[in-house]
């Protein structure tokens, strides 16, 4: 499972405080819609990126996913939104308002996706889940997430094996849509039935090993002064972002 291994940002920090800090920051970044608020969001993102030690390539890979539809939106906005003409290239007129809006949109998206990537990559997934449990996310939801995380690689592997088996038996050689539609429902149904039987055992084993709601114990340490300081820093940046946005800056 990519991007869920984690490893940094964990030493000596209370998981609930860290998760709360990140959630506050990511949420407040949606407010960044002006030059000042965007600069604050960018500075906070850059600081987190440098502290996290994750590779730039990993962040860029994540940023590439929404890149094409957003690029189209930004180009359309630059050409259609606003009254003032920034630049005229032949019949095309690039408008100031649309261009600015596009820049703010891209800036905001880069900041949010980078921060989310840092949270997901630099902190172990299990630790984030336990932090969520500590922050009163329903236990059933945490158990579902935990068991799903455990079962996703199994389901993906099962699909691959069944597809290979179908090909060996002479089905699904063609790559067309009709061939896919012939074999895919049977494979999906088989994986579902197998999984239904198998996950019950996985769930029981997880509970026996001490995971899940049935074994819930409050293992979180009390937050120390350093944790509270870090949360305060996150909260201050978030508050600044919201205030700047409310003032239209």
């Amino acid at each position, binding site marked *: 499972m*990519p*991007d*869920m291994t984690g490893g940094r940002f964990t030493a000596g920090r209370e998981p609930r405080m860290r998760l709360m800090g990140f959630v506050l920051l990511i*949420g407040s*970044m*949606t407010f960044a819609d002006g030059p000042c608020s965007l600069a604050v969001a960018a500075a906070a993102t850059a600081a987190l990126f440098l502290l996290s030690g994750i590779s730039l390539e990993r962040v860029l890979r*994540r940023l590439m*996913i*929404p890149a094409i539809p*957003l690029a189209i939106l930004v180009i*359309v*906005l630059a050409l*259609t*939104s606003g009254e003032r003409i920034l630049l005229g290239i032949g019949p095309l007129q690039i408008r100031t*308002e649309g261009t600015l*809006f596009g820049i703010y*949109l891209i800036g*905001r*998206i880069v900041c*949010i*996706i980078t921060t*989310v*990537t840092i949270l*997901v990559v630099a902190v172990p*997934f299990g630790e984030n889940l336990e932090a969520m449990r500590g922050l009163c996310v329903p236990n*059933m939801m945490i*158990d*579902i*997430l935990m*068991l*799903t*995380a*455990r*079962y*996703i690689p199994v*389901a*993906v592997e099962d*699909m691959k094996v069944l597809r290979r088996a179908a090909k060996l038996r002479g089905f699904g050689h063609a*790559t*067309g*849509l009709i061939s*896919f*539609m012939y074999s*895919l*429902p*049977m494979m*999906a*149904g*088989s*994986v*579902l*039935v197998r*999984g*239904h039987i*198998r*996950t*019950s055992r*996985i*769930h029981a084993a997880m509970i026996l090993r001490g995971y899940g*709601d049935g074994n819930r114990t409050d293992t979180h340490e009390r937050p120390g002064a350093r944790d509270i300081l870090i949360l305060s820093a996150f909260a201050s940046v978030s508050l600044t972002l919201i205030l700047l946005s409310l003032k239209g800056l």
Partner: protein
Amino acid sequence: MHLPDGLLPPSICLGGYALTGIALSASLRIGAKGSYNRSETVPTIAVMTAMFFSLSLVHLPLPPSSIHLMATGLTGIVLGWYTLPAVLAGLFFQAVMFGHGGLTTLGVNTLVIGLPGLLSGLLFRFMTGRGDHIPGKAGIMTAGFVAGAFAPFTSSILLTILLMGILPITGVPTSVSGTTIWLPLAYLPLTVIEGIFTAATVWFLSRVHPSLIGLRINNA
């Protein structure tokens, strides 16, 4: 169908989370009133969530491009009232593992994708009836097709309404946001493919494991 991080204004993101919270709480309560058994319910939701996730990775060739399945109709048929937690979990994994969708838009995406899935499940139950017998092949496949096609088509309509309402607020001119009215048309091929896929899958499940799709085994 997934709205990415940063596109929606904060009020909509917060509203989406609030509404998802309410809908989730209600669906869990209603679901628990049925035949609730935690040691069976949680694994079933988890396996369906994993399937929902895995099927979104399967790209079907549709020249000149390819599409991926959503499987929300199938999720609704298998999980009924528990569709929303499964879709929420599935979208969460898609957001954190592959960056499809986003964490700030998770609430809105869950409503847009999950609610039609839930309605699909109810539609399938309604169409296949509550009798003590398994409906015939035609009945099951028709119900599967309708429920499977209903989910993506309704999601595309919800997304269109959302985008047409939100984009002008965020500064996008109405002439641009108005073009999203064609979105359901763009999702029409997916709607048909989802319908066929769901019909064939529920037919398979009705033969192999009917209780998984809420059908009772015919003892007569």
